[in-house]
């Protein structure tokens, strides 16, 4: 993952466009003001979260709310894990286990499918890609009642395995589609040249194609991981044991308490949000190509 950053830096055009545009200083200043307002609006909920996470319980529940903490209680970040509402440490572990294994499963299943459909024609190829397009648009929420029933009958309701399978299945199409478009972008001559040199199909895939399509793979991994990390609807119904639930579900239990420990809710939220924001920033240039997978050019 560390190798990703310098490579991306190298690709990003460093030249600032405003030097080439003929715009007056006044309009640049106006844009900066507008930009600043947008910046503030988009991060303000997370600033409230951050400052809230450092307040004492008395302060955050005070009827005279404060914008900034009067004392910075960093120890909230240690104490919050033992909140009585839900076993937060287990919830964090659940979130990590489900997201990591679902992402790995997606990678192992989507990568070969994306490579093969981009490279080879076979009967049913269009049907398969159509299936991928349609399932890409489906989300667990609308199918939750069916999923709940199916996994209960199979005897794996309320398990990590069920949520790993669900998260993998609903993100598979998307990952396949992204990687498919990246593989399709690699010139065939590259493959042919390798084959003339006597490389087998797996060698061509791993040694020749993967290094060329890694941006697509990273994009697919990040999107899948973040989607699994934040999944809510299916987890809410499928996972009934408190310790099995991911943080997204666990945190809602604080709502409606007699005196909600908001400072802990926000501390846990900050810990859960920062890694995924960093992942998204890593693929900022490819966010659109990822989500619409080539429909907007």
């Amino acid at each position: 993952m560390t190798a990703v950053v310098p490579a991306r830096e190298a690709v990003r055009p460093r030249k600032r466009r405003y030097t080439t545009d003929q715009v007056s200083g006044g309009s640049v200043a106006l844009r900066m003001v507008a930009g600043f307002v947008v910046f503030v609006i988009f991060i303000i909920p997370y600033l409230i979260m951050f400052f809230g996470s450092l307040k004492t319980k008395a302060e955050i529940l005070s009827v005279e709310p404060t914008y900034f903490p009067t004392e910075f209680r960093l120890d909230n970040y240690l104490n919050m894990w033992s909140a009585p509402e839900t076993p937060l440490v287990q919830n964090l572990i659940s979130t990590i286990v489900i997201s990591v294994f679902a992402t790995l499963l997606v990678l192992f299943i989507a990568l070969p499918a994306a490579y093969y459909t981009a490279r080879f024609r076979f009967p049913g190829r269009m049907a398969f890609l159509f299936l991928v397009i349609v399932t890409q648009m489906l989300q667990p929420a609308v199918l939750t009642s069916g999923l709940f029933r199916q996994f209960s009958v199979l005897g794996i309701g309320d398990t990590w395995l069920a949520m790993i399978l669900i998260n993998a299945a609903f993100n598979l199409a998307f990952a396949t589609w992204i990687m498919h478009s990246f593989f399709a972008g690699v010139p065939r001559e590259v493959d042919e040249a390798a084959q003339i040199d006597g490389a087998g199909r797996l060698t061509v895939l791993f040694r020749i194609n993967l290094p060329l399509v890694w941006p697509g793979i990273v994009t697919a991994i990040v999107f899948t991981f973040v989607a699994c990390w934040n999944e809510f609807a299916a987890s809410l119904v499928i996972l009934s044991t408190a310790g099995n639930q991911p943080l997204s579900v666990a945190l809602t239990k604080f709502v409606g308490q007699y005196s909600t420990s908001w400072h802990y809710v926000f501390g846990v939220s900050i810990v859960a949000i920062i890694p995924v924001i960093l992942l998204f920033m890593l693929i900022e240039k490819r966010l659109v190509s990822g989500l619409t997978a080539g429909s907007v050019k």
Partner: protein
Amino acid sequence: MTQTINEAPTQAGAATGRPRPGVTGGPRAAVGTRFKDLLAALPWIGPAILLIFGVVLFPAVVMFYNSTRDISISGLDKGSVGFENYQTLFEFAPLGGIMVRTIVWVVAVVSITVILSLALAQLLNKAFPGRQLVRMAVIVPWAASVVMTTLVVYYGLEGFIGIINKFLVDINLIDEPYGWTKNAVSAFNWAIAIAVFVSLPFTTYTILAGLQTVPGDALEAAKMDGAGPARTYFNIVLPQLRAAISVAVLINIINVFNSLPILSVMTGSIPGYDADTIMTMIFKYIQTEHKIDVASALSVIAFLIVIVIVAVYVKLVKPMKEV
């Protein structure tokens, strides 16, 4: 691209090391080759097909089936009841309001989001110092968990302790703190605002990508002809954004229709059904009323709505055109 695909069967044969008769093999050989090609493809695409059928399509079938069964609270299947679950659903008085609210929810969130995103994309497409920083800030609600974003707003709107209430009082917009989350209408309106907020990043980035397709010389020509910025935008830029906007609108419709966490946090503790949409009602049936059969019936209706939207997407956006 087309040429690539035409070469593909030869490629498949060569790669497996299987001797191939070449293009002169004739129709009989072609049938056998087609089958062999399919078999060769299975190890690569088989696992994906298995997962999609097992965990996406099969549950849909289970859902259709369960919508015609009588299932007890403990989950026992007590046999077929035909369309009785649908009948129960249609006799449920608040359903009309839930349907109307679902439409209001989707239309309001998607239209406000698209309009704001058009403006936001316009700004982010212009050059100014610090633009990259602003673009990064815009991503944040996209990456962050929707549940957590909603929770912080929920806290902010709490009657006396909420920081948004304090802010609204401080800027003299309201005289005293108001319990926004205790009232179905105000909670629902705030939920719309949150849904717009979390939908803006994707929509803005999609439109931003669309803006890159606007030809520079067309803008230049408009400028030469003396067209003002507004005319240039509506006559040249906006028509060019049609593809981007249709993708953004359709994907947003799906996402917003399927959205559960915002409403379930904001309005979940309000008794009654005055702030429910189809999606929150499905989860009320499953979780609080334990009627998985009626929940399935409503899910089937929701599923059919989603399928219609997907069909419009496939028809309008033509995502298959390049494969």
